[in-house]
């Protein structure tokens, strides 16, 4: 059974800068992988590239059986990405956002059990449903985005620092969710700076430094940060 993600010497450019300068990554279906590396190493870029949002200009890149260099779009419906930004319309209420994105991303209907459960699970039902997303707190935006992911439950999850901004309670919810995902055989790739957490997840840790996959540098080794040329 072929891997969910296979990258070989993949290169991605942001402007003219090689944010990814040769990444090798192989993730088996149902595997949980944590990316870690110094700021600016290219974790976010890597996740966006896997989602087909950043073109891979060199090397090999296959996601869910689709070659990203040929076709960046076919894999997307089966991918969920939680990035630094929430992807919600500031002028729509939580409820309206959920309704629209469920429609758009082929998730279950908004009034289905899956959606209502997900919203309740992340504590964004009730009063919050009527609040305009532009007014939400950082963590609440995260919660809504995660609720949408939970409701959609795609095959490949790409989570960019998912814990950032989540309170203790939501962090527990997240851990439960990842456990369920693992049980359900969902492939999950997480970018995180929280080593303790990564270990507690029992995930395979992949180190990224200066746009290339390598051994995870020790903190001391990073004293001279990687991105200072």
């Amino acid at each position, binding site marked *: 059974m072929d891997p969910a993600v296979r990258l070989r010497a993949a290169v991605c450019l942001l402007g003219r800068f090689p944010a990814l300068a040769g990444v090798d990554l192989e993730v088996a279906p149902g595997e949980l992988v944590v990316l870690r590396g110094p700021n600016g190493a290219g974790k976010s870029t890597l996740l*966006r590239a896997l*989602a*087909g*949002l950043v073109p891979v200009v060199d090397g090999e890149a296959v996601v869910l059986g689709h070659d990203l260099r040929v076709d*960046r*779009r076919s894999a*997307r*419906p089966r*991918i*969920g*990405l939680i*990035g*630094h*930004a*929430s*992807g*919600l*319309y*500031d*002028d*729509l209420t939580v409820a*309206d956002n959920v309704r*629209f*994105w469920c*429609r*758009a*991303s*082929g998730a279950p209907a908004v009034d289905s059990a899956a959606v209502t459960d997900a919203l309740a699970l992340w504590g964004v039902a009730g009063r919050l449903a009527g609040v*305009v997303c532009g007014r939400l707190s950082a963590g609440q935006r995260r919660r809504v985005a995660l609720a949408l992911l939970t409701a959609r439950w795609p095959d490949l999850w790409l989570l960019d620092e998912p814990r950032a901004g989540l309170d203790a309670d939501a962090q527990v919810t997240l851990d439960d969710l990842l456990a369920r995902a693992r049980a359900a055989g969902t492939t999950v790739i997480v970018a995180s700076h929280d080593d303790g957490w990564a270990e507690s997840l029992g995930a395979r840790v992949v180190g990224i430094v200066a746009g290339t996959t390598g051994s995870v540098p020790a903190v001391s080794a990073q004293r001279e940060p990687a991105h200072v040329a």
Partner: protein
Amino acid sequence: MWRDALAVAAKDLRIERRSRVATHQVLPFALVILVLFGFALDPDRGFLARAASGLYWLAVLLAVVLAAQRAASIESGDGVADAMRLSGIDPAGVFLGKALAVAVELVALEVVLGFGVVVLYGVDPSGLGLLVAAAGLATVGLAAASTVYGALVGGTRVRETLLPLLFLPAAAPVLIAATRVTDEALGGAVVGASVGVGDWLSLLGVFAVLYLCFGVLAYGPLLEDA
């Protein structure tokens, strides 16, 4: 495609209902433009009445720019463009939806502006049938074109300025054609014009169809880059 289009249009119109940009800002803006024309074209020489149709459509055009900017800025919210691309929603649907929303706002705008012109410039409306036909076609064309260019500049961080630059010249044919038809309808027919109303109307129609097709084809690729 169509269901997506409706969803998107509904979404945009709901946002409009909440933020009231079109009604509380674009519309007054257009009226202000009409008044400014009044100032600029020293009324004593009284071109206003005669130039009314041209000014009307020019005001519409400028208002469309604002409407399109607003429509584009809706999609530029944090991470929204990415979410849109990831969602796998049919880009053609998105295009049609957003164009539809803009068109709806435009119709309202044109009606009010019409009254504005009648009152401010003292033209007396006639040939309504013709006017409606022209306005209809022009509206579709402008909505489609502005939506396309909105997507074109959507990705860049200089939307406010780039959109008018690209859209206005492209929309010039609509400006002429609509102006000529309106002249005709208002009885101010240009003597000896080699082309009749029919040709102008068909020009409007061609423009609309052209940009609709263009949008349906190009919107996907353009979203990719946004």
